[in-house]
């Protein structure tokens, strides 16, 4: 005889703290949808979707067969060259993700205070130039002093570049969006001049001299692998920003000012001080993105050095919901996509721009999550929208 088991009572509990899975659900589906639509575009353009995404995968993660082969060779002969070659794509993705993490943290920190830092690109340039200058001009220092000094130089340079619009906003009410954009142009033209003049290495190309070996971020493997301590530093900074925002009184102020400046003032917080501080810190983080790129990867700065990291950072901060850990995940995604795209272009003949389309789609879906909820019939979970920026003059 079968026993009938009464169905368990369903209790609806209103929960505020969303689980990790709930938080990641929409962004993950946004990425998936972006890839699907990207695939359709590839198919329309007449190429093979499987070839294209296959190349994207091996270009960003490496080829599994090569990886197994590399391990086999290492164990049978002790020769690690094959394995190193196999992990090259994966490490390159992490290398690409590194400046994304720093710059994404910069924009996210600004958002948390209700500030829109469009100036990460300019701060990135200034940080890179400062680090390069400290890196090549000072000679004979041990690494334990020279490297931190070069990083500090970059962070300070970026901080100053961010602080200026912060101060202008605090003092005169000038909107940071306008001023950070203007600071970008100043940074671009300033770097043009520096690279063609005072900071130019001997030779024809407008580039700086190479930084001293003592100022380089050490690499984990021999050439050609460029994977270096910059990535670790980026992860550490993500944790520091998280700790700062959520575990300190200073971060509490920053978040209060961002969420409700009137209430922050009521509670005795100094709004102006927070604007200046956050813009300086955000500038410092973007500056470190430049530093990590110079000291860890390129070792010199040339024209067109940034490739838009500072602008992509805005998308990253949105994708990561202005949370430091979200930014890290978003930066890794962008790193893998960007890095894999190169292979996709060379091996499958798909233009690298398709990645920009996919990134663009992902951003659209993140900005308008209802599209994703509607597509996948997800019930919306009511949460407070993060305030990104406020209107003019506030």
């Amino acid at each position, binding site marked *: 005889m079968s026993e009938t088991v009464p169905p368990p009572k369903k209790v*609806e*509990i*209103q929960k*505020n*703290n969303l689980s990790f899975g709930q938080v990641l659900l929409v962004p993950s589906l946004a990425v998936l949808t972006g890839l699907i639509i990207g695939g359709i575009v590839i198919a329309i353009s007449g190429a093979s979707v499987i070839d294209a995404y296959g190349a994207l995968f091996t270009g960003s993660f490496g080829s599994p067969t090569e990886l197994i082969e590399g391990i086999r060779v290492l164990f049978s002969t002790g020769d690690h060259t094959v394995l190193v070659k196999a992990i090259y794509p994966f490490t390159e993705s992490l290398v690409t993700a590194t400046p994304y993490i720093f710059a994404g943290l910069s924009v996210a920190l600004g958002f948390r205070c209700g500030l829109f830092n469009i100036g990460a690109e300019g701060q990135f340039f200034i940080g890179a130039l400062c680090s390069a200058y400290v890196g090549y001009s000072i000679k004979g220092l041990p690494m334990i002093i020279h490297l931190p000094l070069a990083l500090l130089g970059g962070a300070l340079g970026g901080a100053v570049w961010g602080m200026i619009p912060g101060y202008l906003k605090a003092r005169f009410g000038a909107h940071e969006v306008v001023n950070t954009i203007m600071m970008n142009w100043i940074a671009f033209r300033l770097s043009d001049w520096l690279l063609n003049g005072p900071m130019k290495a001997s030779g024809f190309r407008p580039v700086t001299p190479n930084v001293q070996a003592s100022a380089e971020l050490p690499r984990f493997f021999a050439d050609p692998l460029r994977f270096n301590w910059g990535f670790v530093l980026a992860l550490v900074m993500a944790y520091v920003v998280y700790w700062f925002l959520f*575990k*300190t*009184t*200073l971060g*509490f*102020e920053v*978040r*209060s000012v961002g*969420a*409700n400046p*009137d*209430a*922050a*003032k*009521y*509670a*005795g*917080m*100094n709004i102006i001080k927070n604007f200046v501080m956050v813009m300086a810190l955000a500038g410092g983080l973007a500056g470190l993105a430049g530093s990590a790129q110079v000291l860890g990867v390129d070792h010199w700065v040339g024209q067109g050095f940034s490739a838009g990291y500072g602008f992509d950072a805005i998308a990253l901060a949105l994708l990561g919901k202005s949370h430091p850990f979200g930014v890290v995940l978003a930066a890794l995604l962008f790193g893998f996509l960007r890095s894999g795209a190169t292979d996709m272009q060379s091996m499958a003949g798909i233009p690298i721009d398709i990645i920009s389309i996919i990134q663009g789609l992902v951003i659209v879906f993140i900005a308008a999550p209802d599209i994703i909820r509607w597509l996948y019939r997800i019930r919306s979970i009511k949460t*407070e*929208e*993060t*305030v990104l920026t406020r209107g003019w003059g506030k």
Partner: protein
Amino acid sequence: MTNVLELRGITKRFPGVLANDNISISLREGKILALLGENGAGKTTLMNILYGLYKPDEGQILVRGKEVNIQDPNDAIANGIGMVHQHFMLVPVMTVAENVMLGVEPTKNGVFLDKAKVANRIREISNQYGLEVDPASYIKDLPVGIQQRVEIIKVLYRQADILILDEPTAVLTPQEVDGLFKILQTLIDKGKSIIFITHKLKEVMHAADDITVIRLGKVVGSIDPKEATPEKLATMMVGRDVNLVVDKKPAKASESALVVNQLYVRDERQNPAVQGVSFEVRKGEVLGIAGVQGNGQTELVYALTGLLPIDSGTIQLLNEPLHNTSPRHILERGVAHIPEDRQRHGLILSFPIHDNMMLCTYYKNPFAKGISLQEKSIFSNAEELVKQYDVRTPNIYVNAGTLSGGNQQKVIVAREFSRPIELLIASQPTRGLDVGSIEYIHKQIIKKRDEGAGVIVVSSELDEILALSDRIAVMYKGQIMDILEASKVNKEHLGLLMAGIHPSETSTKN
């Protein structure tokens, strides 16, 4: 007499909440039906169903005896139902005529807006119903009471004959309330029918032909206004006996807590708002500041709490100057502030309750050691205050924005009362709250007074001023008209002062 509108067995469920549970109400033609209930009782949900903003899970809507299917506001308007929302839906930088025609713009030659036609129609409506307003004036220049008229005209312009007014008196001054009631009377005289949503007891008895009380999503009962008393209505609304009079002993005022001398303050647009105000508050007494809203009370409070700079004059708390110091300095000297706009100043709605409970003291022991926040202390503080002040919330981790207005106010009261205070400034402390919460917050304010704090209560509700104050200052156009002993004044006297008239002057003139 026929029922122009009937709702039968309306049920609406939201996840986890039964907002309307088998509600049936009927509106007689040419009458005013008052829908009375506390905040969160389900009144607004019911009206949103009627207006097509929500779909009911069960139930029928009958207009003039015929069942109708209302899918959206357009259907409601087509059935002659119009709604005046609590928060006005007006564009401030547009004129009255432009606002009225929004959505139903008449055109000349199919392209050009025919503003003259709208203006004429508005004048017709104005004359017919006694709703005087100039179609060419800009909304931003009009007082709140007139803005509400524009909302009513909007509804009439769309030819509604069933009007729903959601908390229409919440934003009005006593004089404007009287004006509104006159308008409502004219409207029914001309054959309109009105549903009037409110939680204010006295005006219901004054204005309504029928009263239906809703509690927790259910109809508790209907009552004839002639038989109703405030106590009866309050009991029906809250479900228990409510003490409408604040129990308080005579004040034991001691030495002076706050001295304000010749204070001048400008508002946020740099217009003079407070013009030469002087008064004193002693420890252990409540000074009520009465006045029609917008006569400088807000700016006075902002200046006292450091949110606005002062032009000239002095503010002294226990003989220490407070003027032109920072809000933080003022907080630390023991000034607690229940702000007029709780969602703008009082709370960060997107932050959990536990963070709001330490919003002003986050940098101090035990909430912080150095710059490191001490979560354990923050949580236990919130748990304790939620219990002590009876904040109704599932837990302390939900965002303040999810709480009802009354519970949000309790969070502010709990936070402000949990630190040592010398002076309490409570600005509109019970605006928009239900009877139960008002009773509670009034008790707490008197408790602080009896513990020896100086208290300033600013309110545009005369009943509240009279219930709480030991002395009453009346503000008019940035100045204090008079300061009176609360035991010796009556409403009429205060009303005249609020209108800027010294009663002695009128008596000499007569």
